[in-house]
């Protein structure tokens, strides 16, 4: 079953007509002409769609909260700030089928009554930014965006907001802060953004992949959608396979598919690359857990099993992988991306990075091993936002699995 990748490489992303020919914007038309905002939200709720950014929060519930909060102005933001190493699914949707995201965004904005929507795009995605600019312009020309959309009384304006290279801005409250012209530091929750977000107004921040699912749900109905995947996690998901597999890239599979299948089935990864032996798979980007061969058979769904599927990336490490380099890579990333708001994360990621440098150069000090445990505990338990926990996940697993190998 293909929902997201169905028309990739078949349509021309630079021409709106080729999207419309495949039934594009029919869902928006249906949502505006035949459905009330309450009905749209009801449908998305019934579909069971959950946020694809990693947290897996039910999208319909989020929308409902924003719709029910009384306010003069509301905002809708599409989160395309993907900057996790090893993840490029949102980038690819924007590249291959930008209108699918825009249509989902417009349906969402209609449902909650937002007049202003943003697409928050990673600053490095220059080509995708251009594609989206063109797509928005063409959608405006067809009256899908702007004043009295499709002859209705609804006005929605969509702008692109380009980020400038900050991983933390993928977190919704940090993202909102940076749009407001403040440092991209996360805010204390509650209040949650659907109640008080951008400029203190109800705001929905949805991942681009989440929004790309919405046109299908509106067109084919919640029932059809909820039958795909597994109960509790319906629909399909884009999985990114990288590392020592035969076929690397993006694969669409129903939620509930196991990592085992994704790596070995010829439909997806097609097994290990020749001459490579499986060591572990890291599921969910640089912040993902390390999964050994024996545990690959758990279904990848939200809130199920021992590990989260996160944003859906699977990095396969083989036995020739240089673990010291990999440890450095994780520590280097998080120390660079820690926003500096809270001390445990700012200092913890920095000290971990210092130790990682020593490990890489084979200059480990006696105290390093204990210190790692201390730092990892602090990061997992005391940081303000999840970035600190993320920084500790892969390291904690690696210490359990390879601690002896590294420290002798």
């Amino acid at each position, binding site marked *: 079953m293909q929902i997201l990748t169905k028309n990739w490489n078949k349509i021309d992303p630079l021409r709106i007509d080729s999207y419309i020919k495949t039934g594009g914007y029919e869902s928006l038309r249906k949502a505006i002409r035949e459905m009330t905002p309450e009905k749209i939200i009801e449908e998305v709720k019934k579909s069971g769609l959950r946020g694809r950014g990693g947290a897996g929060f039910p999208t319909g519930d989020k929308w409902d909260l924003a719709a029910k909060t009384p306010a003069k102005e509301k905002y809708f933001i599409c989160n395309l700030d993907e900057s996790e190493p090893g993840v490029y699914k949102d980038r690819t949707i924007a590249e291959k089928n930008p209108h699918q995201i825009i249509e989902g965004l417009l349906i969402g904005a209609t449902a909650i009554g937002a007049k202003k929507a943003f697409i928050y795009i990673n600053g490095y995605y220059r080509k995708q930014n251009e594609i989206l600019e063109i797509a928005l312009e063409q959608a405006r020309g067809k009256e899908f965006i702007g004043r009295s959309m499709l002859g209705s009384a609804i006005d929605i304006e969509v702008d692109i907001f380009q980020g*400038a*290279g900050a991983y933390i801005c993928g977190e919704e409250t940090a993202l909102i802060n940076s749009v407001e012209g403040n440092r991209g530091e996360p805010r204390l929750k509650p209040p949650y953004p659907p109640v008080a977000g951008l400029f203190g107004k109800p705001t929905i921040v949805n991942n681009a992949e989440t929004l790309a699912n919405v046109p299908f749900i509106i067109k084919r109905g919640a029932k059809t959608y909820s039958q795909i995947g597994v109960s509790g996690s319906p629909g399909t998901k884009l999985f990114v396979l990288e590392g020592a597999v035969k076929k690397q890239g993006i694969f669409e599979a129903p939620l509930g598919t196991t990592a085992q299948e994704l790596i070995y089935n010829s439909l997806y990864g097609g097994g290990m690359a020749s001459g490579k032996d499986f060591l572990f798979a890291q599921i969910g980007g*640089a912040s993902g857990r390390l999964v050994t061969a024996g545990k690959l058979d758990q279904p990848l769904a939200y809130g199920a099993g021992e590990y989260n599927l996160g944003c859906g990336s699977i990095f396969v490490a083989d036995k020739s992988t*240089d673990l010291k380099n990999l440890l450095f890579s994780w520590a280097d990333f998080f120390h660079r991306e820690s926003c500096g708001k809270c001390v445990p994360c700012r200092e913890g990621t920095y000290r971990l990075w210092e130790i990682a440098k020593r490990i890489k150069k084979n200059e480990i000090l006696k105290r390093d091993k204990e210190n790692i445990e201390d730092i990892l505990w602090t990061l997992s338990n005391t940081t303000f936002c999840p970035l600190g926990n993320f920084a500790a996940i892969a390291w904690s697993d690696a210490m359990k699995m390879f601690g002896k190998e590294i420290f002798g």
Partner: protein
Amino acid sequence: MSLQKILVQIEPKPENLLRALKAAQKENKYIGEKECEKIADYFSLPLARIYSFASFFNEIRTKKETKKNIRICSGGPCLSKDSAKVARQIEMLLGLEAGNDAHPKYKLEYISCLGLCDRGPVVEVEGQIFERVKPEMVDDIIQSYL
């Protein structure tokens, strides 16, 4: 174009602040104290807020860059495609160390993720992006771009 001329094209609303900084940097290469002051005036915001905002983002420079800049991705997928060897090759060729600021002319930094994991290893030389870089290509890239 003067900074003033760039700014008047942008509406002074907070959500346009990052856009203004980016536009100004394109022209001026960096956003120093003087530029921050002008932007603060234009947006009617405190100077401290402009500076703290500008200094937050990787892509915005608040100091004049005197060195030639090379950046290489250190993410897992790029690593699995031998980015470490590429980094070592660059270090050897230029006689410097990644992340160390000591070299008078060049600087090699690690970055993570330009979202090009499928085309790694990724190297950026003075804003120009190179994909699928192999150690043996380093020589050519450096000779023609630095």
